[in-house]
Every structure is written in structure tokens, then in C-alpha cells.
């Protein structure tokens, strides 16, 4: 594993790498590296046995500089185009969880030629009538002074899932974990708070442009991005897209 700070458009971007082989760009969600944890989770370690896993922190997350000019997902996509150039990544596998999955889908519809294989895990980004993406901002506010049970339930299959309790404990977690959580919510409030809530209405009609083999992974009990979003992704991405439901899992199905 190695970590470094690269400079993109006069802004610092934190990049972690792990493993060797074909490049795989990993874009993080909420219960994840860079958004809670400083380093790799077991899931990433597994991936790194098969590929060179590259995980860069989103703008304003972990040690990546904040960019006050980010208003929409489009601005995040262009940030990543710059990062890809800086890392000289022309063709790579792309895996994204939650907001990271949304960014991955937006990248894939614009530059299908860059993506070898695409994996979307509990990805936000779509508008599905009658199936609103949950309000993670309200759930992130403490209940009864110190309980984050409803936040854990939104991001995991249940509020007392061991990993959920470790990442989002009641009361006060590790200071730097708390700061990373905050940074991720702050970025998310720029792109996902105001309607559209974590979606881009135009994305649906662009999904047909994706050419890579695509795997869509969803937790059986996703309390944040409803499963119908996964079904919609799988239906509209043309090239061999497959929806795999992880039984018993919640939103953070990969963990």
C-alpha cells in the first residue's frame, strides 16, 4: 500500500494505491475508505489481490482539498477527468459505491472507451419515481443526544451490524473518523441535498452509451438507495449488465 498527494488544477488530491496488475479505480461512498476510515477495508484488500487498486478521496474528503466551485455532479465528474489525466489512466476498471457509484456511472456515459469493466454498488444517481433516495443528512443528526442508530440503519442492514457500530458509533467516534464523515457529508450537501436529491434526471437516458460489461451489486435490504434503482441501472445499461443481490446485506453491500 502506498499513499500520496498529487496536484490537480492547483488542488491537492489524496490517492491511495494497493496491489498490482491492471488498474482499478475505486470511488468511495459513505461507509468507506476516505469517508470514515483512513485506510483500506477488508473488501479493498481482497480486490488488491487481483488488481492495482487506486482510491482517490473526493473533493473536500480526507486530505483532498475542498473545491467551493462544486455545485453539481458534473463538477465532480470533471474533477475526476483531471485526476485520470494526472494518473495517466487511459483504460481501467471502475468500481463505485453509493455516491462513488453515481460518479462512476456519470464517467462511464461520457467516456465509455476508458472503462474496461464497471461495477456499481448501491449507486445513487438515478431518479426512480416513487422510490426516493433516503435523507442521509437528517439521519446524520443525533437522536437522543448521541444515537446514530438511524444513520447506521440507513447505511447497513441493521443498526447493530458490527461494522456499522465500528464506523458510526453512538456518542463520539475517533476524532479524525468524525472529521472524515463530516467532510463527506459536506461534499454531498453540495451535490445531493438540494433537489435533485443524489440524482441527475438526465443520467437515465444516457446509460445506453455504456459499453463495458457491467455488474450491479445491491444489498437485499438497502435502506438508502432503494433496490429499484439497482434494477433500473441493470435494465438500462446495455452490455451484459447483471444485477446481483447480496442476501442479508444493507446499503454497504460490499462490506
Amino acid at each position, binding site marked *: 500500500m502506498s499513499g500520496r498527494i498529487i496536484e490537480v488544477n492547483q488542488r491537492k488530491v489524496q490517492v491511495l494505491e494497493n496491489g498490482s496488475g491492471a488498474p482499478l479505480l475505486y470511488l468511495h461512498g459513505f461507509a468507506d475508505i476516505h469517508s470514515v476510515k483512513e485506510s483500506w477495508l477488508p473488501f479493498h484488500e481482497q480486490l488488491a489481490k487481483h488488481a492495482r487498486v487506486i482510491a482517490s478521496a473526493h473533493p473536500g474528503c480526507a486530505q483532498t482539498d475542498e473545491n467551493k466551485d462544486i455545485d453539481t455532479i458534473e463538477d465532480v465528474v470533471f474533477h475526476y477527468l483531471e485526476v485520470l489525466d494526472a494518473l495517466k489512466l487511459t483504460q481501467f476498471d471502475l468500481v463505485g459505491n453509493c455516491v462513488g457509484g453515481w460518479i462512476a456511472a456519470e464517467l462511464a456515459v461520457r467516456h465509455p472507451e476508458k472503462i474496461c469493466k464497471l461495477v456499481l454498488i448501491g449507486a445513487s444517481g438515478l431518479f426512480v419515481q416513487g422510490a426516493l433516495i433516503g435523507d442521509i443528512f437528517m439521519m446524520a443528526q443525533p437522536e*437522543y*443526544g448521541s444515537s446514530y442508530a438511524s444513520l447506521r440503519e440507513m447505511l447497513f442492514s441493521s443498526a447493530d451490524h458490527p461494522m456499522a457500530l465500528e464506523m458510526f458509533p453512538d456518542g463520539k467516534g475517533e476524532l479524525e473518523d468524525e472529521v472524515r464523515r463530516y467532510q463527506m457529508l459536506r461534499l454531498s*450537501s453540495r451535490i445531493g441535498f438540494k433537489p435533485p436529491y443524489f440524482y441527475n434526471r438526465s443520467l437515465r437516458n444516457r446509460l445506453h452509451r455504456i459499453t463495458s460489461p457491467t455488474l450491479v451489486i445491491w444489498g437485499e435490504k438497502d435502506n438508502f438507495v432503494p433496490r429499484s434503482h439497482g434494477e433500473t441501472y441493470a435494465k438500462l445499461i446495455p452490455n451484459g449488465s447483471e444485477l446481483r443481490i447480496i442476501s442479508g446485506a444493507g446499503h454497504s453491500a460490499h462490506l
Partner: protein
Amino acid sequence: MKSVQLFCWHFMAYPYLAKDFDEKEYTGWVTVPNSLWDNNKARGLYQEYIDQLVYADELGFDGMVLNEHHQNIYGLMPSPNMIAAALTQNTSRGKIIVLGNLLPLHLNPMRVAEEYAMLDQMSNGRLVAGFAPGGGPETFNYDVPSANTREKFWEAADLIVRSWTEDGPFAHEGRYFPLRYVNLWPKPLQKPFPPVWIPGSRSPSTMTEVAKRGYCYFLSSRSHGGETHRAQQEFAAVLEKHGDPYHPFRFGILMSTYVAETDQQAREECEEGVWYFLKNCLKGHLRRVGRQLTYGPGVPYIPAAAWREYMKGYTPGRKLLGDVENWEELEASQSIIVGSPETVTRRIQNLIEKAKVGNLLIQFQLGNMPDHLARKSMKLFAEKVAPALRHASLKQFTEEYPGINFEQSAEAVH
């Protein structure tokens, strides 16, 4: 020099909740079911509240204070400007302080510039123009993304003041509110422009922005222990850094009081209204019971570095004002000062002495307090408390701030 300014603040709570509200309902804010609204009871409520403010003007208070809230039982003024407009027609003397309009909630802040200019004209120059960014609940009510709230807020505030002071039409090339033709009709009456007050909760950046512009800083805390004194010292230090000496009229605080003939009678008469206010109106705002929406990681409006500092001193599950369990704890919080004229005079006097504050914004009607009690308390305050406070504060301020020009120093703007 002038004596302490005593203003009457009305929040206009919804006073008709059932006794088991706290037991049955999760919150008093944002998602509190509006099926609880009862038109049979609420008919005439606004008139009752407006009349209480008019009464404050008759009693010789220095002004009346209104503020903006949405979707809650704590304050029924989504548009304080409408109440302010009513007051322009029913009062003739006191200031009308709107603290404030929530600028980031507006698609175009010129609407606020226009309405405040109208109110200033309609009131013959009695408007105090408050600008506020809105807190957590408003973020959820109006879908205001938190991360850029402060930048939006200051752009809007500066645009409004520019439109009051600079001849139009001009183009505003702003980041959030670009406008081709800014050309305000009518202009406000007061010159160079109505006094501007900005609420804050001790964040150094807000104090700095207020100091830069020569505005009045209002501490939006409801408890007044040592923190009020510290806030005053912090703000004074920031002003000093900007070459602008502190004086008491650059600073304001919110407090609540109830005055009756004796301490015992005061407590007995106000207790129902006080508990209604603490347990119902503050549920979702300043209570840990339920979900507290005002501060937290879900409304991330301060930069991450400031959040890190905040978290260092944060104690999870700490008691907020609405969590007090008995009268003694409430007394200790110095939030609601209850007692005979002598007791209330002594306690507020003490607060003014320590916090060197020239603007007291005082809430009299609390929760479901009936009209006749609110009025009785206001009258006793005006007749038996206010004169002593004015007398003592004039002496204090004259000694502590000799030769200071206390009028707003507004030339710092632009």
C-alpha cells in the same frame, strides 16, 4: 451616551398543543404533523400576538422584535415582514427589528431589499434590518445545501446593502445571485441605510464579517452564563482588530423573563407557559430528546477545520436548554429570568454589568402563556424594572465608554 435598549421579542408560538404532545410527538420542528393545527382555536391568534407587541410600544419599550421560522410550533412567522407591516400601522414610536430575514432561502435577495425598504418607508425610518443565514431546521425545510450557506448569505447581505446605498441600475456579477438590473424602488428612508443586525453563535468568522462591515452582532444563545460575557469579549477583540472600539450598542442578546408581584407568584403564574416552551417548542431544536436538527454533521455549514475544533470540545448527549429537569436547573441556565421586579432587576442588572450589552431583546410571552399574564408581566417590567435598568446602565456605559460615538459605523461597507 444612551441607556440600555429594551426590546420586546415575540416568537408567536403555536399555543394549542394537547398536554400529551411531548409524549406522543417526536418533534416540534420540520416534520411536526400540521394536522395538529386547529382553526377553531387559532382564529384570532395573530391579532392577539400583534396586539401584545403594540402594547409593548405603548408601554415605552424601545422596540419590537420579530424573526423568521418555518414549519414548526416554536414560531409562526414564516414571513416576519408581514407582521412588521402590521406594526408599522399600529405603532408609532419603537423600532421594528426583524431578526432576521433568512437570506439563503431566497432565490433572489432583492426581494428582501425591497420589502425592508418598504418597511422602512412605511414605519417612518424605524426598521432594524436583520439578516440571518438560517439554521439546521430551515436547511431541511427549504432544501438549502449547507456547504455554501455562508458564502451565499454574505453575498446576499452585501448585495442588499449595495442596492440601498448605490444608485441603480447596476449589474451584480455575483457567484450565487447574478443580476443584470439592480435598481431598487423604493429606497429605504434611513441614511445611509437602516441599521443592520446579524445573529451569530460565537463563530469567529461571523464576528469578523460583522466587524468588517460595522454592523451590530447579536448573540443567538438562549442561556447566559459565562459564555455571554466571553462572547462579548471575543467580539470586542475582533472589533479592536478592525480599529473599531467596542461599545454596548454593537452587541445584543436574547433573554426571556416573567415578572409578577412576588417571586413565588411569578413562578406560579409562568410555570405552565415555561414548561410548554421548553418541552414542546424546543423539541427538535434545543432538546436532545427526539432528533435535534439545529447543529450536527447533517447540516455541515462550517468548514471541516472548524468542525474538528468543535468536535474536540463536544460532549455527546450533553443537556441542552430544553432538557432541564427542574426549576433550579432552569434558574442556573440564566435563560428565563423569573421573579418579582426586584429579583428580575437585580439579575438583569448583573447580566448587563458583566456582558456590557446595550441591546436586550426580551421574550415575554412563552409557549402557551395566556394573553393577560403576558401583558401583566410586560407592564410590571416597563414600570418597575425598566427604569432601574436604564438608570444604572446609563451610569455604567458613561463611565466605561466615555466619548464613544455609538451610532452605527457603516462607512466600512464597500
